[in-house]
């Protein structure tokens, strides 16, 4: 009996070109397509493969967010998760609060592995997995590009600045995924129908005894400074001459 818990965040779809609101109060999310954070989708795919390889007997998808987050959890169930839980909350939940919520779920569910994306593509924080591992006092293997499980130990290859690092960690543990871990499967129509019958529980922060308690205030959101468009050169000669005149190449 081995359970894998996958943490999923509902984010603006990665194909959407995000625009900043003119009043600086945030980015435009009304009427914008929402999806599972792509790194979390990779985490879910890996969890499903762990079940298919016989390591996991159950894959639980967990999320924190508004009621509409059920859509992303239904997608996770359609991809193959056995069960889902939504901790429903409308306000902002910072990574530390998210880690506290997931810790409560860990204590309830007793997973051998918690797997999630290395970062969400909205806030780009890259924190929740590490924070959960700290609060749980368990190993973390972040930015994973290869995961092998052997009994009570996982051997994880991580994408680090210097190359590929391999760690051996005792389970239970927290894993966060990098892009090249796998390619998530497509959802098939019959699976979407089947997913409607799967169990999706809803809890509140209060049910888990956690308060969101935000510590960081966003004062303003601005568009990034734009680079000036430069010149088009016609030939390689012209390019090299331009770079030489600016002292960039000798």
């Amino acid at each position: 009996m081995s359970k894998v818990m996958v943490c999923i965040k509902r984010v603006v779809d990665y194909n959407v070109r995000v625009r900043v609101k003119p009043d600086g109060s945030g980015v435009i999310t009304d009427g914008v397509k929402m999806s599972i954070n792509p790194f979390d989708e990779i985490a879910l795919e890996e969890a499903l493969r762990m079940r298919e390889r016989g390591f996991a007997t159950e894959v639980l998808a967990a999320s924190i967010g508004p009621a509409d987050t059920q859509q992303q959890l239904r997608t996770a169930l359609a991809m193959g998760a056995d069960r889902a839980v939504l901790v429903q909350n409308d306000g902002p939940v910072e990574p530390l609060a998210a880690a506290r919520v997931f810790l409560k779920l860990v204590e309830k569910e007793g997973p051998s592995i918690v797997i999630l994306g290395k970062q969400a593509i909205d806030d780009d924080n890259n924190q929740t997995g590490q924070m959960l591992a700290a609060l749980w006092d368990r190993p973390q293997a972040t930015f994973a590009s290869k995961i092998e499980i052997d009994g009570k130990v996982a051997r994880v290859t991580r994408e680090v600045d210097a190359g590929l690092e391999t760690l051996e960690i005792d389970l239970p543990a927290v894993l966060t995924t990098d892009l090249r871990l796998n390619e998530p499967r497509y959802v098939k129509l019959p699976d979407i129908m089947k997913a409607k019958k799967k169990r999706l529980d809803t809890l509140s922060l209060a049910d888990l005894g956690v308060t969101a308690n935000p510590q960081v205030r966003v004062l303003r959101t601005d568009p990034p400074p734009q680079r000036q468009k430069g010149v088009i050169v016609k030939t390689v000669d012209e390019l090299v001459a331009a770079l030489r005149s600016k002292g960039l190449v000798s």
Partner: protein
Amino acid sequence: MGEHGHGKLNASTAKCVTCARSIAGAEIVIVLLGADTAPAAAAAAQLAGVSRILRVDNAANSPPLAAVLAPQVAAMAADFTHVFGPSTTFGKDLMPRVAALLDVAQLSDIMAVEAANRFRRPVYAGNAIQTVETDAGARIVATVRTASFEAASGGGSAVIESRDVRAHLPQHTRFVSLSSADAGRPDLQTARIVISGGRALGSADNFQLLYRIADKLGAAVGASRAAVDAGYAANDMQVGQTGKIIAPELYIAAGISGAIQHLTGIKDARTIVAINKDSEAPIFEVADYGLVGDLFTVLPELERLLG
């Protein structure tokens, strides 16, 4: 948090120092954890504006594992108002674990300091910039977006001290190996010139066209995510939001279309050159010099003219 390895101080540390120096009145201390931090400490002591170097030497600290380092950093944090680490994979792995142990939020990728508790940071892959504030007086744990800061200059003379840190160090995480594609080339994150290739190069072999130019320029070689995904280049060569964020003097993008996540990684480059067959490629919107042409004629010619 100083980053170091093989007796060398990582260039990210000098950039974190510059970020810390923009906090008015800050006394700056660099903490180094390792098995023997003496050489890195000697280098760190020369950074201008740093008052002390704290060495925590312990065999368990090498190679650095976040789960082992974090409780030690958390134990030392009581003496500090701000705990900064670089937004490298080292810092990103470590700092959130430290913050959680301290029961405080962590700020990721600080790109500007507006006040001791107010910072600017990118979100949505750099498509928006947030100004964020924490409660005055609360301890701040953050990663510093190194591409946003110049390295601190030399000429300093910080005092070096050794520290014993009492913390329970876990045994549940063990280092196995590190494999590096590095073949003695300049480091992508500190090179003055970087030349990167995209999927248009078509094969790992064709990356040799870039290496030959890089050799002439003393440049580092990078790659787009598409080129890495296609197996043409190693993962540690990836430039972009999910790879390395760089700020060279000169960036040459060869056969890279310019997906937003790539542009995020290069927007602090001083001069950008784009070479692409497709004149409509988004990379031309940000390039200082654009050349529309076929890579397989342009790159050999570039190599010849730079000779």
